[in-house]
């Protein structure tokens, strides 16, 4: 991180503006497409400025975990393609990819909007496993929010394949989708200097002091949080950031239909 860029970003924040002229709490232009992949049970693509993320949802029938014999589950994986950012390398998922997948996973799982018991086919033997794959096409900052938005949109629009005589026919889709009680959404609030912003671009992401990803429901219920960055946050900071996160989550929720 170069010193002059960071100084410049902070100076601009004092004037209530940013490198690209946005307000501090303003998102870049968001576009959301669903059903972009035919072979997936559900899919969505989110463009957040120049950030581009595709999420695909596949389902499988599996044996349930021994501690929850009557529950299905979700599995989230993230792949940071080397083409999407010069810093990303091929190979097993690194820290960033694992964190991204966990942020999305926890946002959905802890919101309890998805009843895992309804994913049970036969107790102790067969349950549906929902596999959510995040692929970054281009990283121009703020992957967590884009991924979480795409993931929930893909889940909302997914349709189960036909399941007959213990076999899944992926070619035939049924009209049955997932029963989501609410739309949990994640908003990452960034602290740089003493200002809070949302939706950082790649330059701002390099200047982050601390970040907090806040997942919330439509009534403002907090589902999950993830803190990152090198600097600590005070209790006051956290409550301010949660407020911003919940507020912005409401804005994003309008996009998911």
């Amino acid at each position, binding site marked *: 991180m170069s010193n002059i860029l960071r100084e410049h970003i902070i100076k*601009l924040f004092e004037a209530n503006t940013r490198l690209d002229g946005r307000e501090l709490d303003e998102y870049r232009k968001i576009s959301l497409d669903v059903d972009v992949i035919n072979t997936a049970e559900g899919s969505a693509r989110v463009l957040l400025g120049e950030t581009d993320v595709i999420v695909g949802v596949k389902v499988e029938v599996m044996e349930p975990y021994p501690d929850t014999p009557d529950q299905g589950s979700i599995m989230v994986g993230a792949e940071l393609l080397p083409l999407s950012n010069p810093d990303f390398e091929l190979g097993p998922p690194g820290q960033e990819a694992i964190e991204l997948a966990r942020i999305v996973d926890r946002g959905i799982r802890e919101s309890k909007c998805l009843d895992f018991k309804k994913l049970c086919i036969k107790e102790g033997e067969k349950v549906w496993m929902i596999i959510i794959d995040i692929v970054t096409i281009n990283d121009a900052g703020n992957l967590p929010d884009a991924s979480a938005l795409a993931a929930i949109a893909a889940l909302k629009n997914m349709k189960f394949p036909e399941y007959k005589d213990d076999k899944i026919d992926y070619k035939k889709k049924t009209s049955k989708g997932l029963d989501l009680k609410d739309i949990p959404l994640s908003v990452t609030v960034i602290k740089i200097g003493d200002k809070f912003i949302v939706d950082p671009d790649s330059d701002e992401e390099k200047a982050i002091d601390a970040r907090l990803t806040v997942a919330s429901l439509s009534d403002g219920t907090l589902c999950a949080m993830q803190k990152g960055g090198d600097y600590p946050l005070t209790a006051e900071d956290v409550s301010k950031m949660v407020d911003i996160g919940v507020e912005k989550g409401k804005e994003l929720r309008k996009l998911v239909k």
Partner: protein
Amino acid sequence: MSKINVKDKDIVVPGEVLAVGMDSFPGIGTYRGGENIISAMLGLVQLDGRTIKLIPLSGRYIPKKYDTIICKVTDVNMSGWRLDINSPYSAMLSMKEATSQFIVRGADLTKFYDIGDYVVCKIINVTSQKLIDVTMKGMGLRKLKGGRIINVASNKVPRLVGKQGSMVSMIKDATKCDIMVGQNGLIWINGGPEGELLAVNSIRKIEQESHLSGLTDRIKEFLDKNKPKFTNDNNEKTIKK
């Protein structure tokens, strides 16, 4: 009998056979493979007598002697500074070329330039092995303070600068920003928030439309159209240097 497969100003891709036969010569951006002259890059063909040259449309910056460039300090060592010049090669700024001030043996060189600082410097030598020496002695060569750095493709720099710097001075006038363009594609901009934003946007526009004619007029129009927004209470919002 030799045959030239391309016309002047054709766009060619790497691997394309530009001419067959020994009557033509390979120029910049091309090479000879047996009888053929083959393109090595994405570029515009320029037929210069019997020589076939390419004007590169892509690729990284290749250092040239006497270029003024903007670079970032990546390392400080015993006798000078290592610089990232936005190229496959790095440059060396020696103590002798950095300042005319006397530096005692073992002095802390980070007091002059530290890692992460941006400097404007001039290339004084490029060896055949691409070892690059730069100097800080000269007009306008200095450490950059404040402002922001943006990156454009180095082969678009000539269009951005314009004839005798006409394009860049037009942007400077319209946006009231200090702008410094490095031949290596790094550009330093410092001014008020709105001015800076307009400067960045117009530079991006130039980058996108650099291959089309009538660029200057379009940029002038673009600047005029977006100017009023920024002239309003400009002074109030201008960041003090």
